[in-house]
């Protein structure tokens, strides 16, 4: 499977931080020499960042030498991390609608923000040990038929809807309900390569907002290789970004409370305080395999499939290079405009081609206020890293 949507190891690359170094040591199974540096892997206390000189500062200006790009000191090797495989049970996918947990990790700079969020979502396992947000990644090839068996392990009825997929390409229709404890098998025959949002549309969108959303990737026939669609642009690597906002206090806690439920959420009001990318907070997502963009500078072009399953428009700003927008909501564009900021309105999808043109580290981040935070903790919102090697 070319795309790792989630990983048991949400690896981050932050140097000089003992907790991170410890994670790296465990995650890389001793492939790296860990334990060097001031803190050491066993020290539980973080090493504070050196203080910057307070103002007024008479220090003469420091001019970085831009022509010399030092080789990054620690380069995580994401390919060594095992990736959960989608159960390709004969004929299709199995999804289980369950309550799950999104674990928000703390900012390594400030140690603030660790939080466990209760969500609903689509797990790949009945035992509910897998990730639920975003839901299991569904993948198909143009013109091929896949089946998606969905079992509802929650107590309310749910449904299954794929935005922008013609109704002739999916049965049963979204009006079919999956009752509590029951299963339904959906048959999908998508004919158009692209990325789609699937979600639950019951309860005025509350179910989707508390986590019941995921992505369907449709690729062209295998023989065509790495092309976005038959006759479309080529690429070297792929990434998928499912972005989602959550108003945890006023939506999740109400909808998931058995004594209240989705119908009790006041949908006129929405003040999201968590902003996830592939079910992760910013510091988790930055260097996560499948989320980060990484490769040799000059020869790596990514096809990034982007799904906004949330309710807020997110304006995604890429550093390091402009990129080409090749499709919007399934519509293949005839001219690929080069931009550096992609506005993603709620429930929309897009595909872009990003060429890593320079060595170094470049963020992709949302460019608006609280969306850059996780409940007010800076950089714990929508973010990913771009690494040119």
């Amino acid at each position, binding site marked *: 499977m070319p795309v790792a949507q989630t990983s048991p190891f949400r690896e981050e690359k932050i*140097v000089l931080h003992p907790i991170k170094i410890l994670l790296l040591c465990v995650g890389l199974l001793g492939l790296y020499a860990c334990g060097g540096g001031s803190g050491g892997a066993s020290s539980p206390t*973080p090493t504070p960042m050196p203080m*910057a000189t307070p*103002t007024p500062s008479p220090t003469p200006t420091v001019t970085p030498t831009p022509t010399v790009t030092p080789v990054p000191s620690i380069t995580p090797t994401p390919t060594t991390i095992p990736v959960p495989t989608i159960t390709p049970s004969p004929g299709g996918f199995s999804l289980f609608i369950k309550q799950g947990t999104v674990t928000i990790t703390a900012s390594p700079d400030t140690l603030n923000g660790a939080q466990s969020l209760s969500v609903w979502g689509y797990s790949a396992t009945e035992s509910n040990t897998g990730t639920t947000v975003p839901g299991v990644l569904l993948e198909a090839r143009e013109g091929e038929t896949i089946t998606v068996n969905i079992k509802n392990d929650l107590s309310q009825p749910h449904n299954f809807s794929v935005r922008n997929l013609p109704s002739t390409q999916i049965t049963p229709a979204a009006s079919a309900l999956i009752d509590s404890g029951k299963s339904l098998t959906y048959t999908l025959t998508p004919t158009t390569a692209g990325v789609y949002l699937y979600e639950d549309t019951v309860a005025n969108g509350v179910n989707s907002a508390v986590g019941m959303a995921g992505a369907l990737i449709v690729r062209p026939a295998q023989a065509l290789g790495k092309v976005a669609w038959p006759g479309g642009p080529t690429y070297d690597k792929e990434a998928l970004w499912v972005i989602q906002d959550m108003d945890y206090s006023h939506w999740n806690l109400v909808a998931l409370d058995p004594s209240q439920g989705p119908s009790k959420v006041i949908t006129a009001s929405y003040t999201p305080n968590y902003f996830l990318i592939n079910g992760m907070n910013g510091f988790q997502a930055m260097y996560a395999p499948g989320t980060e963009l990484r490769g040799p500078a000059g020869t790596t072009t990514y096809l990034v499939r982007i799904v906004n399953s949330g309710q807020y428009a997110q304006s995604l700003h890429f550093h390091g290079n402009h990129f080409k927008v090749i499709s919007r909501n399934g519509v293949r564009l005839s001219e690929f405009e080069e931009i550096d900021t992609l506005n993603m309105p709620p429930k929309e999808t897009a595909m872009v081609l990003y060429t890593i043109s320079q060595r*170094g580290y470049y963020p992709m981040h949302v460019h608006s206020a609280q969306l850059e935070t996780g409940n007010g903790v800076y950089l714990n919102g929508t973010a990913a890293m771009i690494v040119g090697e």
Partner: protein
Amino acid sequence: MKINGLFSPRVLTGSALLLVISAYSNTVLAQKAFVVRDVATANNVSLVVRDFTKTMRDGTPVPFWVFCTGCMGMNNTGLTLPGPILELTAGTPGQVTLNMMMAPQEDTGSIASNAYLGHTIHLHGLDMDTQNDGVPESYAAQNSGSSVTLREGVTYMINPPGTVRVDDRYIGSHMYHCHVHTVKHLEMGMYGMFIVKGGGALAGHINAAGPKYDEEWNMMLSTVDPRYHTAAAKGDSTIFADYIPKYFLINGEEGYDVANPSNLDLRHSVTLAGQSKNLVIRLMGILSTQASFEIRDANNVALPFTLYNVDGFALKTPQTVTQVQISPGQTKDIMVTLTTAGVFYPQVQFSDLRSAQPYPNGLVKTELTVVQ
């Protein structure tokens, strides 16, 4: 060029640092001089950071941190929100130096605030390399885990010797802003316009393939949630978990207002002198909401114009429209051909991120006067 007693604030050239001071001729305000935004070439410019308190129309004072070119030492005249306009000719080398002397910044005293000490300059849209990108976190990833040196005052090199990244493709509008804790520092006003202009045969052209313009007008769109400007909002704060914009600004002002002559940046006049004139309007979005731009006439009819550049890059095919959207971090350059005298109202409607509902006080108007 005088219109209604106002000195036209536009500065079309910028081979040197220009500080334009104009006197308002109205007798009531005869003693006041008004400083219009600096225009500086980015070939070699130094920026400092200063405290700047702006009194909003409702009387509320809001503290900002702004960039300034002419405010070395104790000289605090000429502070503007946004900061000065930086201009660079495509293909030429540029140096933008951040001088941290006497710069206001976050309080020290906790790990949280230490992480967000100092300031940087991110040249938004110029696709800078990591060393010159002004981002503490990615700088640290490349430089042994420390971004301290990045925050103490740095010269950012554009097109350093032997390299030309910012070439004719970049002719158009970009931005610069601090990239330390951008949630707080952007909101505090640490931003300005960065315009890449064509040189040689492309001088005065809207982009490398586009037409020439006769007049230019730059508009930076921003929003203010005054809660973000308080002492409580620093480091990680639940204040940053929500955004409630209260003020909506074009070029730091809440809208064209005859009674308030400080908003010279919101009025522009064009003299036709018997010819049609091409006016480029550069829209730079440093806002945290959505926004749409239109040009209305005296009958409130939206007029067509042509969109040429998005994020400082030329569209393959320019689009003639009556409205463009500007989302956070985006820039758009449009051109309108003026042929008849009249008064027009370029305006921005700010709207929310959930369903693009207009904010009740989110319509900000400017005034364009065209005379024969």
